[in-house]
């Protein structure tokens, strides 16, 4: 495998990808709805980490202008992720509200039982 970049330089992205795959696996393989939502959250956190790590500049500091600092980290990913975090919790709460309603209707929050109930009716 021809690596055009140094090994430690890309390690952080591989960690992010591992986290992303863990979240992906949880979503598609778990039956419990709450665990699926937890898996979605893990996936979300890995995406945020990806953006933030892309924004860091070596030797830079937080993007708050002050005397004595010359190099700043890129503020643009911070802005995107800031709103994404709050929007993420709002949509997670929407998903959890749906889980509560599903529990009311189907008496269960296990995915395969709901599938069986749907197939029967």
């Amino acid at each position, binding site marked *: 495998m021809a690596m055009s970049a140094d090994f430690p330089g890309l390690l952080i992205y591989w960690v992010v990808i591992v986290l992303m795959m863990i979240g992906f696996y949880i979503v598609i393989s778990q039956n419990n709805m709450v665990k699926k939502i937890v898996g979605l959250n893990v996936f979300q956190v890995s995406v945020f980490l990806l953006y933030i790590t892309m924004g860091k500049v070596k030797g830079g500091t*937080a993007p708050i202008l002050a005397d004595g600092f010359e190099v700043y980290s890129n*503020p643009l990913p911070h802005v995107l992720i800031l709103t994404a975090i709050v929007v993420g919790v709002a949509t997670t709460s929407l998903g959890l509200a749906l889980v509560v309603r599903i529990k009311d209707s189907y008496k269960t929050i296990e995915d395969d039982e709901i599938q069986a109930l749907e197939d029967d009716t």
Partner: protein
Amino acid sequence: MRLRNLFAVVMLTGIFSLLGAAVYVIMDAVDVAFTEAAVGAGISTVLMLGTLALTTSEEKVKPGTNNLPALILVLVTGGILIYGTLDMPNYGEASAPIHQHVAPHYLEKSTQEIDLPNVVTSVLASYRGYDTLGETFVIFTAAAGVLAIIGRGRRPQQAPHGGVDRRRGRRSRKSDVKSDDEASKEGSS
């Protein structure tokens, strides 16, 4: 995830969020760390605990929960993504394309055009204010959606006529044919 007790799962999620906030500080993203700590370790954990209190706190144990096709799919996807990252610039490099186009403009021009020390706020509210407007609308819609789904109190679990039909999401003001006036709570939104 091998945990059966969902309460432990929620607690671990909270700790995970806090660790994420620490990582963000290391990456010089202090605003993001602030938000993640407040939101992840606070609100998110409380919401999941609320959901668990309303549904169930134990997962049903099923025999043979190994899922081989899912594992293979995940490994293949991960391999493709890792292959995709080989073209990316190294971590922290100042010559990466992301730092070339708009970001230096924001950092330099922010002093003379907006004159705020916190560049993240000036980008969020002024240079990218339109995006923030959209995000605010999304938060509003999510809250309105939660109100619409579970805002009105619950039907009692044992309904005299049974069945799924009686559990409707939104209750309209017009009278229902069935007599479930006694089951409707005060509008608790």
